[in-house]
């Protein structure tokens, strides 16, 4: 379907030439404004100066270490959080009782900004990587929990009857019938969860755990190196975009069967 629409492969995101031209245009204007000193701030370098600083950064061992730290903690926190979200969300989706008794608390608690919990987490775990992992996991849980519970509730009731008449055990009904039917909303939740996890990892590193890209970004600023500061911003931005793209490609690949179109639409990438 999508191949027919835009000539791109079914599960690889497309290459949007018009979008790239605009982005390049913005960079050119920025560079011109800075070079001609129309815009002249002490700490605002042009794109060329930033790009010039990049190779050295990308080659440094310390950068590799920090990059790996942020990637490891955001992905682990996301994985653990998503796992908890799927299990607890399934419980809420399947059990009217659990939903009745606990969903209100969930709604209230999940609306507390994770960053407001940073001080207490820091008291409990210290300014450590454990604290970072806890906070990342915490934010990753909610979008998945809510989307799994909601997705399960919208599953065609007939499919539950099918599972019963075929005498499926509860875990098989959940894994083979219910969760796959709710795959669209669940993927949306997982994607939201991934981007929140990454944001909270960076923020925690900036104001809590002295490690990772967030901390390096802070250090660059404290050293009054605007080019380096911008390099970190670029790296962080590109990583977030790449993570999102990899996730979309994986979910399209996973849903390449009949529900591919549905997944596409739900992700808003069609």
């Amino acid at each position: 379907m999508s191949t027919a629409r835009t000539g791109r492969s079914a599960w690889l995101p497309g290459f949007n030439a018009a979008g790239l031209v605009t982005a390049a245009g913005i960079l050119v204007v920025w560079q011109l404004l800075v070079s001609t000193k129309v815009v002249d701030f002490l700490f605002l370098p042009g794109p060329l100066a930033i790009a010039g600083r990049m190779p050295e950064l990308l080659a440094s061992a310390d950068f590799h270490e920090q990059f790996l730290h942020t990637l490891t903690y955001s992905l682990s926190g996301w994985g653990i959080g998503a796992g908890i979200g799927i299990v607890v969300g399934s419980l809420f989706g399947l059990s009217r009782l659990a939903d009745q008794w606990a969903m209100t608390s969930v709604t209230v608690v999940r609306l507390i900004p994770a960053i407001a919990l940073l001080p207490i987490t820091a008291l409990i775990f210290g300014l450590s990587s454990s604290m970072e992992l806890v906070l990342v996991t915490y934010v990753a849980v909610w979008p998945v929990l809510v989307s799994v519970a909601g997705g399960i509730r919208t599953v065609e009731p007939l499919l539950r009857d099918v599972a019963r008449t075929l005498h499926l055990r509860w875990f098989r009904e959940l894994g083979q019938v219910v969760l796959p039917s709710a795959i669209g909303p669940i993927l949306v939740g997982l994607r939201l969860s991934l981007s929140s996890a990454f944001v909270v990892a960076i923020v925690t590193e900036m104001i809590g755990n002295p490690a990772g890209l967030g901390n390096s970004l802070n250090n660059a600023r404290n050293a009054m190196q605007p080019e380096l500061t911008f390099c970190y911003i670029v790296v962080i931005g590109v990583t977030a975009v790449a993570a999102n793209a990899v996730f979309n490609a994986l979910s399209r690949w996973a849903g390449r069967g009949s529900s591919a179109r549905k997944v596409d639409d739900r992700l808003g990438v069609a």
Partner: protein
Amino acid sequence: MRTQALDRVADARTGTASSNAGFACRNVNASYTGGHGGAPIFEGIDFDVAPGEFVSILGGSGVGKTTLLRVLGGLHAAGKGSDVRFAGQPLSGAPDRVVMVFQNYAASLLPWRTVESNVRLGLEGKMPRREQRERALAALTMVGLADNLHYHPRQLSGGMQQRVQIARALVMDPLALLMDEPFGALDAITKATLQDALLRIQRQTGMTVVFVTHDLDEAIYLSDRIIVLAGSPAGVARDLAVDLPRERDQVATKADPRYLELRQEIYTVMHSSDPRRRP
């Protein structure tokens, strides 16, 4: 190889076909919480289905046929005072080896699974994968879909999708099959073909079939006995044996004078002003 698979399934079935695989309903009622202010959909339903018998439940739209079938399949709890039994045991949940075939075949197949893996669904975790595949193939052979194993449901016509659903039930080696207007949405030719396929499979396996339909001709053609539901709340308006030869033929059976008599009798029951009063 096909006939071998078929024979094996038939052997297994006749070997295990239990002599008490029938239903007994006494004073059965059912309602929906919230629907009709909780008023019963039907009440005082009494009937038996003997093992190996093909019984149709006939009635107009909304009379409660689907609800009654769901009660027999353990998917809907009967009301207070009801006594529903399968093989002599009161129902609690879906009874073992009683499988339902739903009216809406499109929504009851899993679209992300192939034909073969849809059919295997009920076997997974209950036997080795090799055996699952063998049994799925045998069941699909019975419904004439042995060449469509790797298709996805959306690639099949409505009639083929319904065959997949029937194969998914057959693979469970059921003692009783509950079918809710399975051919209602199909064109006349497909319908006749599937009716004959169903009769052939039923004769071959000896399983009990309870078949819901609103189509008078379909009910007479297929059944050993017909139970007509009518009224509100509904009751059994008629319970009559179809005393036609058990070998049915789409042309000969429907030209049989006895067929026409039965047809007239049931038509009158279905269209009388007070269908529950016997003449």
